[in-house]
């Protein structure tokens, strides 16, 4: 086993264990942290494939931004574990069936000879820049799908804000522009006073 394989198996084992941890952890905060670990080790796997841009972006976007907001929400939830575990055995066969189906599909697709032959990683020279290649492809060959995806995301973002933005009556707020415009003369009065001699004449 070469060094490359050893690193691959290390990251693969950590990813699998962390992913299992996401499902079996009782505490939702622990589950979210396991997911962070899974993302980090998946980024390591991508790095092995010389997909440095994707690997770093995975850490930057998912670990650095998405999971922070996830944790933010999960930490503030008041979760009743007993209620959450209610009906576990009732739904277990259903969930197990879906999981089994997914495993079967993945083995079927990834295990067949055609896909495994065509998906071998290509090794590149030392001066190969994954970022440059991706940028070139995204902005030439795939420019329309790329822009379309960006617009769809923008629409989703605007829709999410529009759906959650509620105007309630009687909310007190500050008028920031008014606060910013305030000058020293509006708030402060300097009073000049002549000095006085002490009452006891000293």
């Amino acid at each position, binding site marked *: 086993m070469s060094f490359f394989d050893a690193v691959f198996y290390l990251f693969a084992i950590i990813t699998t264990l962390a992913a299992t941890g996401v499902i079996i952890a009782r505490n939702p*905060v622990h589950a979210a*942290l396991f997911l*962070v670990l899974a993302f980090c080790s998946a980024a390591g796997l991508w790095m092995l494939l010389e997909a*440095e*841009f994707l690997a*770093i*972006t995975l*850490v*930057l976007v998912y*670990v*650095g*931004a998405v999971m*922070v*907001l996830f*944790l*933010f929400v999960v*930490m*503030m939830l008041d979760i009743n574990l007993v209620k959450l575990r209610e009906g576990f055995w009732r739904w277990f066969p259903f969930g197990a069936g879906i999981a089994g189906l997914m495993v079967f599909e993945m083995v079927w697709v990834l295990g067949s000879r055609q896909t495994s032959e065509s998906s071998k990683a290509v090794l590149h020279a030392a001066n190969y*820049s*994954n*970022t440059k290649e991706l940028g070139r492809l995204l902005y030439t060959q795939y420019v329309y799908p790329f822009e379309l995806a960006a617009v769809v995301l923008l629409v989703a973002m605007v829709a999410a804000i529009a759906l959650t933005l509620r105007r309630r009556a009687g909310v007190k707020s*500050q008028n*920031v522009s008014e606060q910013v415009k305030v000058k020293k003369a509006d708030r402060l009065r300097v009073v000049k006073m002549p000095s006085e001699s002490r009452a006891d004449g000293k």
Partner: protein
Amino acid sequence: MMEWLEPIQKMLGPAWLPIWTLLKIVVIVLPLMGAVAYLTLAERKVIGWMQIRIGPNRVGYFGLLQPLADGLKLLMKEIIVPSGANKFLFIIAPILTLMPALAVWAVVPFNAELVVANVNAGLLYVLAMASLGVYGVIIAGWASNSKYAFLGSLRSAAQIVSYEIAMGFALVTVLMAAQSLNLGDIVRGQQGTHGLLNWYFIPLFPMFVVYFISGVAETNRAPFDVAEGESEIVAGFHVEYSGMAFALFFLGEYANMILVSFLTSIMFLGGWLSPLPFLPDGILWMFIKVAFVLFLFLWFRATFPRYRYDQLMRLGWKVFIPVSLIWVVVVGVWMQTSYWLW
């Protein structure tokens, strides 16, 4: 350059690379820790002078041994874990704050040759590692099982996530100007015959300001230190920490300050390049620029009152993000014209 090392390299064989890398890490981390220690002294001295005080002057000449005394004191103190805390996460949180702050140094170039890893996507790596620092704060606040700590960590998470966007866009303009993500190439892009007029802080001046202020906010420094906010939430996320665990948060904060200063110097102030064309380039210029930016950090702390939380959010979302978005377009258009001289 390193011919004299070859016999050792042959002797060690395959073990050479890990040992050599470890040596390089030690050569960076040890001076960094020393710089962190003396930055705390510089901070207390500078703020003292600005407020017409003397600052520490009892331990050693001019208080020069004060950081060592502080370090020793923190090492001897007991680390108290609150009984309701999540023990594992409570202990691991300070480590999670410090590690990303150290990991970024792998791609920071000190001069044209001195860099541990000359990575092509260096700038992206810097951004990714900087965004990991927030986990230490969030986990510390949650694991302490205290409402002050929790409030501090929530504030910090919201603050860091919002300022990261403006920071990212500021970096986008830098990589547009340099046409590279490699930090070394970014400095080389600022090389020219006019000294400091070739540096990116001139065409990207609004981004220089946005980046530096976001950097101050990202490191939780005054006037953006609402995560600590001692007058509102005691000390924020690290209120339950003591001893060395507490010290690790501060090591991380100061290491991050030094890092932001290095990155500001590299991306906007020409890194190791000399400001005047007739003087030679060198690592000394880098340190002078870093010292200047660090002084700005201390100056800010001594001068400005703390931002209110809503003002902080307004500055991030309603001022910096629009400004940086507009400047990305401006730079894009500018670069297509013949007026782009950089």
